[in-house]
């Protein structure tokens, strides 16, 4: 029922406001967007996050989450939450980008927070790939792994794979710090440096596997398992063949 109500509201809202979604970090959201977002928020988010986004026993406050936080959480489908648990998982987004923009407008109107990037801020054409690699290994690889495949954390949480992350999602995740992830603000990793990191991740996503079977690019765990089961298994079969008496 809740989902239906959400979808219904979304459809109505999308019919009312069908503007495009390129929002600048410091762009002023329109009053209509904020009003529409407030309505969407009250129906879809306030049961957990509180009527004024102040948070509750089961959900954090959204004051300070900013447009970037909303854009990432709702844009990747992590919010609204499918089920309570250690970690919200990505799924097809429930809201349209227009609705997400409205929600972002409303949340960022409550308290200052990180904004969504402009198209220029996501332009990685001139970004330096080598710098991106160094910054990725220093700041990102610990949790998301060197190949960007993600990895386990504690208490049921995990750093997700970056293989399907869009530049906009990577940017908004860095500035807003979704869930367990800490915030990598523009003060310590500048927008230009974020562009290099995005370019590096795009390179990881586009990478071929010259050796064939990548085994998840998880390194020694899957490679060892493969060698022990497939490699050693083949050797044992050959040894049996050598030992069996010919007919």
């Amino acid at each position: 029922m809740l989902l239906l109500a959400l979808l219904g509201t979304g459809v109505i809202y999308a019919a009312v406001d069908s503007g495009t979604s390129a929002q600048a970090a410091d762009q002023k959201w329109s009053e209509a967007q904020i009003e529409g977002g407030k309505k969407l928020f009250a129906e879809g988010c306030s049961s957990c996050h509180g009527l004024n986004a102040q948070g509750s026993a089961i959900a954090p406050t959204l004051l300070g989450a900013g447009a970037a936080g909303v854009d990432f959480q709702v844009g990747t489908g992590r919010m609204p939450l499918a089920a309570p648990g250690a970690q919200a998982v990505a799924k097809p987004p429930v809201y349209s980008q227009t609705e997400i923009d409205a929600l972002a407008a409303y949340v960022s109107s409550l308290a200052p927070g990180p904004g969504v990037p402009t198209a220029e801020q996501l332009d990685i054409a001139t970004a330096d790939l080598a710098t991106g690699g160094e910054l990725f290994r220093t700041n990102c690889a610990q949790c998301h792994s060197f190949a960007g495949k993600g990895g386990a954390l504690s208490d049921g949480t995990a750093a997700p794979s970056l293989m399907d992350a869009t530049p906009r999602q990577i940017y908004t995740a860095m500035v807003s710090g979704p869930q367990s992830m800490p915030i990598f603000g523009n003060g310590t990793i500048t927008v230009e440096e974020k562009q290099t990191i995005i370019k590096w991740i795009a390179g990881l996503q586009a990478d071929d596997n010259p050796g064939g079977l990548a085994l998840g690019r998880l390194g020694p765990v899957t490679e060892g398992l493969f060698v022990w089961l497939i490699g050693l298994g083949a050797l044992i079969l050959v040894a049996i063949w050598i030992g069996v008496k010919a007919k």
Partner: protein
Amino acid sequence: MSDLTTTNTGAADGDHGHHGHDGATAGEHAEHAEHTELVLPNGRPAPAPLPHEPRRADIDPTAAKRAERQVSIMFTLAILLFLLFVVAYAAVDKTTVIALPAIGTMSASNLTLGVTFGLAIFLIGAGAIHWAKKLMPDVEVVQLRHDLVSEPQDRAEALEIFDAGAVDSGFGQRRIIRRTLIAAMALFPIPLVVILRDLWVTPPDSPTPSALLKETIWTKGERIVTDGSYQPIRPEDIPVGGLVNVVPASLLEVEETEGNLNARAKASSIIVRMRPEEIRSQQGGTPEEPWDYQGILVFSKICTHVGCPISLYQKRTHQLLCPCHQSTFDLADSAKVVFGPAARPMPQLAVTVDSEGYLVARGDFQSHIGPSFWEQGS
């Protein structure tokens, strides 16, 4: 070849035929056990030999011919594959990527080189084994084993020789030689100990290994800069919930003179920021002068278990997780160990801001960074 195996096949049916070939291969025990039935050295009768079943290639010339053809085909294929390897090396473009079912994309060059060379070597081995199994002589051989202990007269003789040697050498009579020899052998490990001693005792004017591990290049007033881009940091650059991987500003100077891997390995740190009321305890400082600066906490990045660099900070729980062995530290509570094999908290670095408003260290770490060790005394 086939008549040799046929001879054996006929002979193996009865025990009479054994001595013909076994005498040469199985040694004397088979020799004196030849007559009626085999008797083991322990007196028990040996188990009856299994009936010999001739292989198809032994009795059917067409089967032998077929096996011969199979082996030669394997070797011929190996020849072709070796030639194909050379052709593939020259002809296949190194940058071409092809898609394969189940495997995904891979380099065409790697695939062709690997398949031709690997399959060729496999076919040589497989051909050799097929040859041995199908065509080489199918002789069944019994090799009996005997006790490992020597005959009584051999043992008595060895003792005699030893005793005679002891008497002849004078080891029993010449006490001075015996005692000095024993003393010399007892001192044999001394040079080794003297050399190995340098591992834990150093000359008085050089820092001890303990001091080398204790001292990092963090000093009072040292600016904290971002790792990778080496920019100084203002407190307002770090939002609550933020994480910054940092090094001391002087690391770049160290790099110029001697390479900085040791200095970097010891001084690498992380900054996290939480709301000041979330900090339950710190490793030092007073209420007036806490080690944090407005909720900005700095900790060593080197795990106190076995020294992995860790920055897996989970901002909701303030826990720092080490991916190597899952040691977990609560950064809001003096970085105490809350899980895993680490024995000590992650060392904390006291911080403040300088006159220009940049974050600086208030001195070196107060406890050893990195893994625990014997001499640290804690």
